[in-house]
């Protein structure tokens, strides 16, 4: 323990050198900028910066990369909240309540709880990384495909809480997402599915294209067709630009719960950052004292998922640094960066290159502080961005959407998909279909299918394997409870009232 503290202090001595602070700042700014753009994530940015940093000391390079990693998360939530346009998959849940809050004139509070929550969870996640990493890393070897499958089934329960007003419409959106997710080559057998003979569809429909089309394009078409011609302030700032005492009271528990959910799942090799945000949203909605506010801008629904997202990002560094095992695209690029410097992450790195490693960990703390300092004053500025006349906001959104879709692979097919799925997004808004279930289906469907089939392949087709481990059985049991408990409680209450009457 003392040992770790000493090492960490030495790390801070490295991270706080002016040159490294400068790189941290550059990384944070760059990360925030790319987080705003859909489709351009930290993995791509770091990959493209790899050659540039050959001239920079490894400490500085990794400190900058850490800034990009965290900065992208901060940036991604900003567009989610203000424009209902998530910059990356981890901010989809943030958009649901966050954008409602912005519409009610509480955009500043949403941005603030998201920034502070990100800071709290990022710091807690980094603390856990500092002190618990080797222990948590063992989880990677314990989780098998059946456990992941159970975790994904549990995540599917989050669909139930974003269903909207009608179950049929909610499920339609979910199955639409599942159906899109089956397009492309099946990795387990190499068979192509639903590609209609087009090469462009063999790799499936990219998540970014669907995200951009359903949110940004669908929203643009819808608002254009139904705008009120009356000019006026776009999002009136009601109730001050800051979090109220009540906002604080309602935010701090979701922050902590989000961090608690995000970090361990993020540190699993197949965990990712999306599942924690789904689960956190579900938990907050179930635990909230004001569930009726969900769907209309409940601050807990922003605080929880944002915290989970950032803690998960700290989590993905656990298997990377302790085992040399990359679990996400970003981690894989970071691994390549280590190898560029002739370094190999893993237990040996702690022994051979403690300066670099602890400098990196210390810079995660520093980066979080920088991002908080950057983002809180920016809240006011971001909100003011919305005072730009509406034609220019939506014109800009469409250019951003084009950048995300076209920049991905300069594919004409992607442009066509953007147009088509954008129209579906428009129709969904006209007839009140919820958007989030489609994205949940698209993200979780393929993952759940892969894990299920892996589990069955290893067990040679024995289905009992799905409840064969304590983890899988427990997670599935919780999933069943989450779905049916509200019905049972409602029935129980009903019975109580009847007996009273």
């Amino acid at each position, binding site marked *: 323990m003392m040992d770790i503290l000493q090492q960490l202090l030495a790390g801070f001595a490295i991270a706080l050198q002016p040159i490294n602070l400068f790189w941290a700042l550059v990384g944070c700014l760059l990360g925030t900028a790319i987080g705003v753009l859909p489709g351009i994530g930290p993995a791509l940015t770091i990959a493209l910066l790899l*050659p540039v940093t050959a001239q920079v000391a490894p400490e500085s390079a990794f400190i900058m990369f850490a800034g990009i990693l965290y900065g992208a998360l901060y940036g991604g939530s900003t567009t989610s909240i203000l424009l209902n346009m998530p910059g990356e998959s981890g901010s989809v849940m943030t958009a649901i309540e966050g954008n409602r809050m912005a519409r009610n004139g509480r955009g500043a509070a949403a941005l603030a709880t998201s920034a502070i929550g990100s800071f709290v969870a990022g710091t807690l996640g980094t603390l856990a990384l500092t002190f618990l990493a080797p222990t948590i890393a063992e989880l*990677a070897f314990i989780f098998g495909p059946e456990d992941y499958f159970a975790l994904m089934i549990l995540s599917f329960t989050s669909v139930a809480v974003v269903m909207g007003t009608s179950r049929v419409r909610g499920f339609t959106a979910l199955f639409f997402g599942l159906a899109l997710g089956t397009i492309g080559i099946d990795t387990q*057998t190499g068979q192509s599915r639903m590609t209609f003979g087009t*090469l462009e569809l063999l790799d499936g429909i990219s998540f970014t294209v669907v995200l951009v089309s359903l949110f940004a394009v669908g929203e643009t078409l819808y608002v254009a067709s139904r705008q009120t011609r009356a000019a006026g302030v776009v999002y009136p700032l009601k109730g001050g630009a800051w979090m109220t005492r009540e906002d604080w009271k309602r935010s701090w528990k979701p922050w902590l719960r989000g961090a608690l959910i995000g970090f361990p799942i993020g540190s699993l090799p197949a965990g990712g950052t999306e599942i924690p945000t789904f689960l956190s949203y579900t938990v907050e909605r179930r635990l909230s004292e004001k569930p009726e506010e969900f769907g209309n801008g409940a601050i807990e629904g922003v605080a929880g998922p944002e915290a989970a997202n950032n803690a998960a990002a700290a989590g993905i560094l656990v298997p990377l640094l302790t085992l040399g095992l990359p679990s996400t695209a970003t981690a894989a*690029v970071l691994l390549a960066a280590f190898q560029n410097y002739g370094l190999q992450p893993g237990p040996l790195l702690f022994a051979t290159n403690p300066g670099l490693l602890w400098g990196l960990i210390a810079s995660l703390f520093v980066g979080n502080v920088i991002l908080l300092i950057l983002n809180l004053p920016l809240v006011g500025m971001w909100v003011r961005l919305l005072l730009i006349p509406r034609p220019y906001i939506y014109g800009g959104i469409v250019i951003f959407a084009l950048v995300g879709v076209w920049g991905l*692979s*300069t594919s004409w097919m992607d442009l066509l998909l953007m147009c088509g799925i954008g129209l579906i997004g428009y129709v969904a808004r006209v007839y009140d279909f919820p958007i989030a279930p489609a994205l949940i289906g698209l993200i979780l469907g393929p993952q759940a299918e892969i894990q299920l089939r892996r589990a069955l*392949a290893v067990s*040679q087709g024995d289905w009992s394997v799905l409840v064969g481990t304590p983890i899988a059985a427990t997670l599935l049991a919780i999933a069943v409870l989450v779905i049916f408990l509200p019905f049972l409680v409602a029935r129980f209450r009903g019975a109580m009232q009847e007996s009273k009457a």
Partner: protein
Amino acid sequence: MLKKSFLTGVIALAFSAGLAAAEPAKVLIPANPGGGWDGAGRETMAAFNKSGVFTDGVSFTNKGGAAGTIGLAEFVRTAEGDDNALLVTGVIMVGGVISNKTPVSLDNTTPLARMTNEYNAIAVPADSPIKTPQDFLAALKADPGALSVGGGSAGGVDHVLLALLAKQAGAPVDKINFVSFSGGEILASLGGGKIKAAISGASEFRDFAKSGRIRLIAVTGPTRVEGLDVPTLKESGIPIEIGNWRGFVGAPGMSEAGRKTWLDRFEKLHASDVWKEALKAHGWEDAYLAGDEFKAFIKAEESNWTTALKDVGILK
């Protein structure tokens, strides 16, 4: 007035000089930024520049998808007769052309040079009873279904290697239990004993093996991998050699002079120290093979892969 005309003159001069001096290479990378092909393409061109072999500049276009066959089709369509157009290629594209049954293939291009190779390794959990390649074959023959083997995507190098091993063992190829993974998950599954064995790039396993959770039992190159005390399949009496090679091809209808120029450049690059350093830095094996020999090699790979993909049931 004088100042203005002077400025225009300078700009015009710079512009014409730019046009005259540089015939930059146009490199098409058939994958999205950040992947293996992207790295191979960009690093090779950087080495060209650094070694002074080719310094006229380069522009990259990424066109990913469908195992590189979308990029290949685009290249064949747009680059015809362009002596400065290059396409990054590799074994994955050979497999993609066959399994996706695309109308264009590498035969439509002008093969220039194979530059690198990344050989595979077979690994088992540290406590596995399988200790040698022969043990592996025996286990495969005894009960192919019970030996779940992880690897990359179905129809890729890892899958084909397992099929070749099954053939060698005399086990039915359609009964092998290949489990597809992507990313680092395969290492955790193998280390945790969820799967019985795994096939992946030797460099991906190498450092993880040092943690003592997994054991490498064979590599698939012609010689041992430097710094790894692991036998090749050939040493163990199994005549299989397979790897993830990458190289460059030129446009369809490339002029003979253009082909000569580029072959000369690749040869010079291969001889340079800069290239040797680049190989080392990225863990690539030197696999230099140029011109007609490379062309013949591609032909041989195409027929090998057709057989292998039929065996594993990807190609009907």
